[in-house]
C-alpha cells in the first residue's frame, strides 16, 4: 500500500483518505517555537510602532482622514513632539505625575485592602453575605464619578475626596472578584480540609486564600486599570492641586495641545506600569497558577 494513491486521496465528495502527518511545528520544533516567539514579539512591538509611525506621518503631512478629519499640526501633537516635549524636563510637570501616582497608589491600597477584606468575609460567611450583598450590589452600579460632589462635601477640597473616590471604585471591583473567588473554591478542597479537622483560620490560611488568590488577582488587575481611569476622571473634573488629569485639562483650556497629549501618553504609561506591577506581584504570590495572556507580556 502506498501513501500516494491518486484514486483515494482528494475527491471531497467521495471516498477519501485523511492523512495525519507531522507539520512544521513537529518537523522543526525548535525553529518553529523560535519563529513563533519572534513573530509574537515582532507583533507586540511592531503594531504599536506602526501606529505611532502612521500617527507621525499623518501629523507631518497633515492628512485629511475620511475627507473630514484633518490632522492639523496646530491642534495635534506628534509622537516625536510628545517624547521630546520640553514639559518632560520641567520639575513642575513631574510633580504633577507624582501627585497622580501617589493618589492612585493610596487609593488603590485602601480600596483593594477593604475589597479583599469584605470580599473574604462575605465569601466565607453566609450571614455577612446576607447582610451586605443587596446593599453593595446596589451601590456597585452607581457611577463612582457621580459621587464626587458628595465626597467634596464630606471631605472638603483636599486630597481626600480624590483618593477616596479611587478607593471606592477599586473596592467594588476587588470585592466582587474576591467574593466570587472564595465561593468558587471547589467543595472538595473544603471537605478535604474539614476531614482533617481544620479550624476556621486554618481553612482560610491553607485552602480558601490560596484557592482564591488567582481570581482575586484578576480583580486587582482590572481594578488597577480602573484606578487610573477614575484618577484621570477626577483630576479632569477638579483640576486644581495638580495631577496628570489637570495637565490634560490645562492643555485643553490653555490651548496647549502638546501638554494634553503628553498628559494622555503619561496616563497610559502609568496605567500600563501599574497593571504590570500588580501582575508581577500576583506571579510572585501564586506560582502555581497558569500564566495568563494579558497585555504587556514579553
Amino acid at each position, binding site marked *: 500500500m502506498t501513501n500516494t494513491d491518486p484514486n483515494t486521496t482528494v475527491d471531497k465528495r467521495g471516498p477519501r483518505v485523511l492523512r495525519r502527518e507531522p507539520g512544521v511545528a513537529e518537523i522543526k520544533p525548535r525553529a518553529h517555537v523560535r519563529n513563533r516567539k519572534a513573530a509574537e514579539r515582532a507583533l507586540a512591538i511592531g503594531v504599536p510602532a506602526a501606529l505611532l509611525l502612521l500617527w507621525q506621518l499623518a501629523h507631518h503631512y497633515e492628512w485629511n482622514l475620511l475627507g473630514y478629519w484633518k490632522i492639523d499640526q496646530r491642534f495635534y501633537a506628534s509622537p516625536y513632539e510628545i517624547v521630546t516635549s520640553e514639559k518632560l524636563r520641567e520639575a513642575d510637570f513631574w510633580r504633577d505625575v507624582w501627585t497622580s501616582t501617589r493618589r492612585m497608589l493610596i487609593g488603590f491600597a485602601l480600596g483593594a485592602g477593604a475589597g479583599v477584606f469584605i470580599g473574604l468575609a462575605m465569601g466565607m460567611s453566609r450571614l455577612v453575605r446576607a447582610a451586605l450583598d443587596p446593599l453593595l450590589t446596589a451601590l456597585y452600579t452607581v457611577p463612582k464619578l457621580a459621587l464626587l460632589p458628595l465626597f467634596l462635601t464630606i471631605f472638603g477640597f483636599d486630597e481626600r475626596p480624590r483618593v477616596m473616590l479611587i478607593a471606592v471604585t477599586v473596592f467594588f471591583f476587588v470585592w466582587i472578584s474576591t467574593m466570587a473567588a472564595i465561593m468558587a473554591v471547589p467543595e472538595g478542597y473544603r471537605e478535604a480540609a474539614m476531614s482533617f479537622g481544620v479550624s476556621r483560620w486554618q481553612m482560610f490560611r491553607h485552602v480558601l486564600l490560596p484557592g482564591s488568590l488567582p481570581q482575586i488577582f484578576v480583580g486587582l488587575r482590572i481594578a488597577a486599570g480602573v484606578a487610573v481611569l477614575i484618577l484621570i476622571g477626577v483630576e479632569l473634573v477638579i483640576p486644581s492641586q495638580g495631577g496628570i488629569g489637570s495637565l490634560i485639562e490645562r492643555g485643553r*483650556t490653555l490651548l496647549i495641545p502638546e501638554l494634553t497629549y503628553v498628559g494622555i501618553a503619561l496616563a497610559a504609561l502609568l496605567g500600563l506600569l501599574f497593571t504590570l506591577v500588580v501582575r508581577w506581584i500576583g506571579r510572585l504570590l501564586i506560582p502555581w497558577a497558569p500564566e495568563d495572556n494579558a497585555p504587556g507580556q514579553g
Partner: protein
Amino acid sequence: MRGTRKDWWLKILGLLLVFAVIASACGDDDEGSDPEPGDDASDSSGDDSSGDDSSDDGDDGGEDADPLAGCGEGAVTDLSPDRDVARCEPGYPAPQPLEERASVRLATNFWGFEFTAPYVLALELGEFEKENLDVEVVTGVSLADGIVQMEDCTVDITVGGTEASLHNGISAGLTVKQVIGNYFPPDAGDTSIDQTGLWARADAFTNPDDPDLTELEGTTLGTAVALGSVINYPIGLAFQEAGVSLLDLDLEVIPSADLPLALENGAVQSAWVLDPIWSQLADNPDFVLVATQPPGEALGGLYASSCFREDRREVAVAFIRALIRTMNTYLAEGYKTNNVEELQVLADVADIPLEAFTGTPETLMDWEMGEGTSERAQGFFMEYGVLEYDEIIPEDQVYDRSIYLEAVRGPEG
C-alpha cells in the same frame, strides 16, 4: 411556534418603543430650538426701521434713509480708560438685510446670564432676523474649544474672555481674533461701591476700612477659574499695585456659587466674586470689597477666525451690527428701568425671576475693545506661566476692530 410568535411581538414592541423615544426627543428639540422672531420683534421695537414689510429686502429703507444716521460722534471713542462708552441712538445702526440668507453658528459656554444679554436678546427679539441671519446657538462650549472649532469653520463665532488660551492659539498660528467687546461694571475702579471684584474676609486685615492687600500674602484665594482665565488679570493687577504677586497666594478653584460659603467658613480668605453672587456678601460687615475690574476695560467679547472675519465678512458685519443695535436699543444706560419688558425675555430664557436682573446694578454694555487690555493681560499670564511664548503679542494681532467700525461707520471704516 408559540415561542417564535411571542418573540416577534416582543421585537415589534421594542421597535415601537425605540421609535416613540426618538420621536419624542426630536419633537422636544424642534420646540426648544426654534425661536419665534416675528411677533416678539415687531411689538417690542416699535421705534423705526422695523414695522414695514421687508418683502422687497430693504429697497425702500436702504438708500434714502441713512442706516448710520443714529450713529454720530459717540459711536466711536478714543478707547481710553476714562472714556464714555460708545453709543448710537436706539434702533441704530439700522438693519441692512443680506441679499441672501446666511446662517451663523454661535458657540458659547453660557446662555441667559446678564452678560449674554446682547446675543440672547438679538436672537429672541429678532435683531438677527432683521439682518436676514439664521443664527444657531451651541451652548456649553468653552472659549478654547470654540477657537479650535472655528479654525475649520465648524463654528463661526464664539464667546469668552481675553484668556491665555486665546493668546496661545494666536501664537500657534490660529487666525482667531476678538471682534467685539462685551461689558464692564459702570463703577469699576471704585471699591466703595459693591460690585464684582475681589472680596475678602474683614478679619483678614488689621484695618478692614483701609485693607492692605499685602496682608493676604500666603492666604488662600478662591476662584472659579484656573490661572489662564482673564479674571486673574484684574486680580493680579490689584495685588501688583500692593506689591504682591498672585503667585504668593494659595489658589483654590471653587465653583462660583460656592465662593460666598467658602469665604464665610474661612476656607478662603479672599475670592473673586462675580455678578450677581457678590450681592450675598454686600452689606455684611464681615466682608469687604478690596479690588474691582479696572475701569473702562471689557475683559472679553466675541471671537472669530478668518473663516468668518475675512471669508464671510459681510455676514460678520451684519451679525455684529445686530449685536450693537441690540445694545443701543435694549441695553443702553438705564435699561433696568426702561427695558423691563426685554429683561423679562432674558429672565424667561434663563428661567429665573425678573428680580434677579432688576435687583442688581446695571453693567455697561460696550462693543469696543479698550486699549491695551490684551497686552496687559498677557503680562500677567506670562508671570503665571500659562503662555507658551515669551514675547507679548501686539494687540493688532489679537483685536480686529474693523468689523464693529464698519458696522457703525460704514465700509471705509
